[in-house]
């Protein structure tokens, strides 16, 4: 199966027939969900899936390039608000919402690149990347929270401070049906699913490519990576921009899913969540990160019925246990154990 070879490699777990057939089965099952479960569950699934881009982005930045960034939620928020501002001003006729989508992503990617340039080309060390990105996240939240007055508006879109921005139009696919297909409910679910699968496959190729190898080299030993002839700063900038853009995808999808975006989505607690999902899954592998994100979101939601605090306490406990006992991530630990068991069983059979 040589056409699969680009998708397998040293940076990803799972490469054989077993893995890929399970993957195909999972995709088919997920695609069939609207016919298998009730619509509110489908909406929830769409919600879980839309966060995966943020986590995958963090996996690229932190798990692969070794840069701990607290800034993912800043890019999430920037993209969400940008989508809101652009789409409220442009309206949703004739696929203009896609202009808002792309505009928001472009803006977010540019901002991420700017921050990356400032940090990596300024020779800021790793601890300071954490400080700068945390500061940016806090600035964004604090700044947006005080935009309550009517003077805080861009065009016809009011920023609304603590209460957040709402009533932005959902994404609409021009054509398909009369007036364009509004991406809500099942349509939105399939869109998010298709995007998630494409991004996942695309990242699998990327992290296993030469580019991915260089990122890992930078994570392991940045001086040696430089001495092999790589411009470390450029690769760090590329990884950080990609991660920021992916966080932006989550941001736009979140905004369009709930028609709503608030400053608290950029707050300190919100900034902790992608770190928890990525760390718990195993940040160095995109598959475990993906699985852990969806699982932990589902778990939080189930617990939030009792009270959001219980869910968050559990998240905190999980993160603490992971750091102390399974720093490579729980899902990674589990998959390794599974792989060892499978190998052992195979050996015993021969």
């Amino acid at each position, binding site marked *: 199966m040589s056409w699969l070879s680009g998708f397998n490699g*040293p940076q990803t777990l799972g490469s054989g027939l077993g893995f890929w057939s399970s993957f195909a089965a999972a995709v088919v099952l997920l695609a069939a969900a609207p016919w298998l479960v009730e619509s509110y569950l489908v909406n929830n699934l769409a919600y879980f899936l839309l966060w995966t881009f943020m986590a995958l982005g963090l996996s690229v930045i932190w798990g692969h390039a070794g840069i701990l960034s607290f800034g993912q939620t800043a890019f999430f928020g920037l993209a969400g608000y940008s989508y809101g501002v652009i789409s409220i001003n442009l309206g949703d006729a004739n696929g203009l919402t896609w202009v808002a989508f792309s505009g928001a992503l472009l803006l977010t990617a540019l901002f991420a690149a700017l921050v990356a340039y400032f940090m990596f080309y300024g020779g800021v060390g790793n601890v300071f990347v954490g400080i700068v990105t945390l500061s940016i996240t806090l600035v964004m939240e604090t700044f947006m929270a005080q935009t309550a007055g009517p003077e805080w508006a861009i065009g016809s879109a009011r920023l609304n401070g603590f209460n957040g921005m709402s009533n932005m139009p959902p994404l609409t696919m021009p054509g398909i049906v009369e007036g364009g297909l509004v991406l809500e409910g099942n349509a939105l679910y399939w869109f998010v699913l298709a995007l998630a699968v494409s991004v996942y496959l695309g990242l699998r190729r990327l992290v296993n490519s*030469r580019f991915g*190898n*260089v990122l*890992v*080299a930078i994570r*392991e*030993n940045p*001086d*040696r990576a*430089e*001495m*092999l*002839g*790589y*411009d*470390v700063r450029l690769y760090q900038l590329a990884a950080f921009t990609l991660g920021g853009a992916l966080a932006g995808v989550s941001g736009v999808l979140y905004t369009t899913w709930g028609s709503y975006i608030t400053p608290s989505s950029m707050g300190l607690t919100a900034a902790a969540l992608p770190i928890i999902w990525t760390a718990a899954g195993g940040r160095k592998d995109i598959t475990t990160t993906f699985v852990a994100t969806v699982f932990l979101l589902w778990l939080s939601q189930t617990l939030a019925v009792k009270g959001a605090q219980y869910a968050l306490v559990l998240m905190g406990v999980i993160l603490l246990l992971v750091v102390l006992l399974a720093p490579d991530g729980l899902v990674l630990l589990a998959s390794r154990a599974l792989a060892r068991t499978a190998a052992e069983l195979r050996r015993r059979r021969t």
Partner: protein
Amino acid sequence: MATLLETRRLTKSFGGLFASRGVNLAVEAGEIRCLIGPNGAGKSTLFKLISGTYRPDAGQVYFDGVDITLFRPYRRINQGLSIKFQVPGIFVDLSVEHNLRIALQRLVASAQIDDETEKLLYFLDLAGARQMLAGTLSHGQQQWLEIGMAIALCPKLLLLDEPTAGMTPEETFKTGELLKRLNAGGMTIVVIEHDMAFVRQIARCITVLHFGEVFFEGTLDDVVNSKDVVRIYLGKE
């Protein structure tokens, strides 16, 4: 013969302490040069100035006729330099094979990279250990792995800082033979060493550094017979 590497009045100080004091060094293409000198003579500092890890306070570095003084390290590597520092610089948590592949991938096309990795593994006598994590290799094997990564770049100039430190006499001898083979193939090599048997095995020309300056240059016999050199190593006669 053309001068491949030249430093002019290279100077570097750390808080008032001069590690390099106007070093003028010229290495011809095709040489194997050994850099020796007592501890604190500034040998490793000189290498770091040549690699770009340190910025000089004054002076220039020329490589193959190009003034690389202001180049960042990765640009110097791209010009054809390759370096192995004293502190091990392998990717300890990656496999041996992956270490070499990362070193090779910049210059080798995808179609050939598997073959080239194989060849390099056998060349370094590490084929049996290919899946092992690089950090679990013996010290001598780690040195070879790193030398392997450095030569994977097919450099014009190879700089090695104490490559045989911690090696057994057999490993040291093998390393010497390896370097001679590389040199016979056209690679210019500069080695910082303390092991005089090794120096004798590989070098024709030797530069002695002392207190950050070039103190003496000549063949090994010239060096051994020089009273001045003996004095700086042993203190007063």
